């Protein structure tokens, strides 16, 4: 992919193959890829995500063998999978749990990238491809959620397709085009199944681009300091195949706990009711991994503005490499940024909490304060507004200005420096002096 190849074909067959299709060379180079030697466990989530994608594709292909993508048959075919198909329950629970595990891993992977500044030059495109994968994942998860054709599936599909309808003039015809009728119905289910089967392979293609883009500059690392010499790196195999493998094994334990002991913990009971086009579930919520966006949508009392801010919330992630002005990659050396980052995580969690609760639900029980605009100040709606304001401020104000104003701590001269010597005993002048920006 990049850098000189160290592979030397040893046998006649390998030489013959290498001259025609250097696939062994490709694999060897991938395994010997020089990787920073200080990667911590937060860096194992890339491998974990590859594992998740594999699990979803394999379990999904199996489910598609037994699933009936029609308005009349879909709901019953899920029951058929759960009750009659040999190990159907296991494969389905792996697939439904796998979706949540996939998002747990991707959120950790994204926040790791934010904390360690992995999106900064020269890795902006790597970040953009990753953000595109995240967007594709959300679309795939949404299509998949509709397939059981339960009542929450149905109304979730209706609300999401109507979000597109908020765009003036072209919105409503696009919604009609997306759902293929006056409203969500059997044609919608059929096309969502087709797209749900297609998208994982598009994700896989983007993952290939993501890995390719990773292998040009190489991995970032917890210090954020560039690799300076060969002594800063170790070959990917066996060092990180083993570390990633160990992390995947731990991840699989958590995965298995959910599959075998809590398979319904993250599923909605309303989805055990067949789709009913005249009865909206009393409490409609998306899956947990979309709740923060849902809270932002609900926090804004105007349809079009709500949808615009929903789009901006996701768009911010794409724009991050250009919003951040700090030249110090890792927040390890940015004490102020660390605090704002902590609050960003809290804001996202609070938004998730608010998304799961009714807008008028009280945060402090039995306390009525006063109504501001539409809801009592002590309400899930107002809490989500506070969190949403912080979320946007972090992207639009804190991140651009903090990089210009803060005084970062001295970063080590090289990756090896903090590894070989105690930070306190670092030799004088070891600092790369990032605080003296030009």
């Amino acid at each position, binding site marked *: 992919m990049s850098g000189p190849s160290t592979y030397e074909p040893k046998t006649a067959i390998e030489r013959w193959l290498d001259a025609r299709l250097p696939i062994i060379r490709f694999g060897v180079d991938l395994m010997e890829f020089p990787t920073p030697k200080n990667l911590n466990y937060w860096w194992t989530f890339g491998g974990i995500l590859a594992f998740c994608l594999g699990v979803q594709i394999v379990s999904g292909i199996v489910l598609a063998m037994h699933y009936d993508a029609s308005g009349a048959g879909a709901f019953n075919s899920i029951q058929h999978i759960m009750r009659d198909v040999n190990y159907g329950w296991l494969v389905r629970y792996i697939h439904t749990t796998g979706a949540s595990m996939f998002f747990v891993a991707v959120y950790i992977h994204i926040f790791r990238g934010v904390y360690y500044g992995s999106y900064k030059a020269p890795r902006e495109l790597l970040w953009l491809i990753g953000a595109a994968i995240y967007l594709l994942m959300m679309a795939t998860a949404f299509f998949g959620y509709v397939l059981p054709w339960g009542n929450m599936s149905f*109304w979730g599909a*209706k*609300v999401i*397709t*109507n*979000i597109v*309808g*908020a765009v003036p003039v072209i919105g409503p015809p696009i919604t*009609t*085009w*997306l759902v*293929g*009728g*006056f*409203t969500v*119905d059997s*044609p919608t289910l059929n*096309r969502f199944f087709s797209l749900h089967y297609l998208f994982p392979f598009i994700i896989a293609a983007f993952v290939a681009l993501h890995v390719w883009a990773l292998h040009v500059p190489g991995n970032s690392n917890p210090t954020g300091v560039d690799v300076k010499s060969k002594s800063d790196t170790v070959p990917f195999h066996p060092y990180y195949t083993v570390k990633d493998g160990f992390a995947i094994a731990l991840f699989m334990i958590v995965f298995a706990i959910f599959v075998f002991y809590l398979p319904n913990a993250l599923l909605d009971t309303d989805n055990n009711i067949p789709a009913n*086009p*005249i*009865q*909206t*579930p*009393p*409490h*409609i919520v998306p899956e947990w991994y979309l709740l923060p966006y849902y809270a932002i*949508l*609900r926090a*804004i*009392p*105007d*349809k*079009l503005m*709500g949808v615009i801010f929903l789009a901006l919330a996701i768009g911010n992630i794409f724009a991050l490499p250009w919003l951040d002005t700090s030249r110090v990659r890792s927040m390890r050396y940015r004490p102020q940024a660390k605090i704002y980052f902590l609050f960003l995580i809290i804001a996202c969690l609070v938004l998730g909490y608010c998304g799961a609760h*009714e*807008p*008028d639900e009280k945060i402090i029980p039995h306390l009525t304060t006063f109504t501001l605009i*539409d809801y009592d100040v002590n309400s899930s709606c107002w809490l989500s507004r506070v969190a949403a304001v912080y979320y946007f401020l972090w992207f639009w104000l804190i991140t651009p200005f903090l990089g210009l104003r803060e005084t970062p701590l001295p970063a080590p001269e090289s990756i090896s420096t903090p590894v070989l010597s105690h930070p306190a005993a670092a030799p004088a002048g070891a600092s790369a002096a990032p605080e003296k920006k030009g």
Partner: protein
Amino acid sequence: MAESVAGEHVEPDPSRRDFIHIAAIAAAAGGVAAIAWPFIDQMNPASDTLALSSIEYDVSKVALGQQVTVLYRKQPLFVRHRTPAEIQKAVADDHADMKDPATDESRVKPGKAEWLILIGVCTHLGCTPTFGGGDWGGWFCPCHGSQYDTSGRIRKGPAPKNLAVPDYTFETDTKIKVG
């Protein structure tokens, strides 16, 4: 240029080559556009879906103060038999501050004010509002908290428009034809 490739075939008139390029690209683009349209349009509603156009309903089946939800074009249609008090409340609010101002009279058929026929789809994101809920006693949308009055007009919440009144006529005194 011609000297350096002496003895070789001399480039023909460049405008002729340009023409071939433009013609080839135009033909390819036209072909792609022509074949793309069927592949895009196939996702629009099919003929049998569009054929579900009109329904008839006998409104006398709805008791005073009640509402019946029927399926119209695969969407809920509210048929509400309003009480005089509900009508009075709706008329009294005709000039109240509203997002989508409309008089109660404009939302019913003349002389049939007790029958309110509405598409039961919240104008925010398409949920079905629940009957009788909200501060105005009309409908309350469980999804994002929009509230409609007894005329189906939006009074509070994120929905931008009133509940839609479908195209319908009274065929007899009690039978309506929708669509």
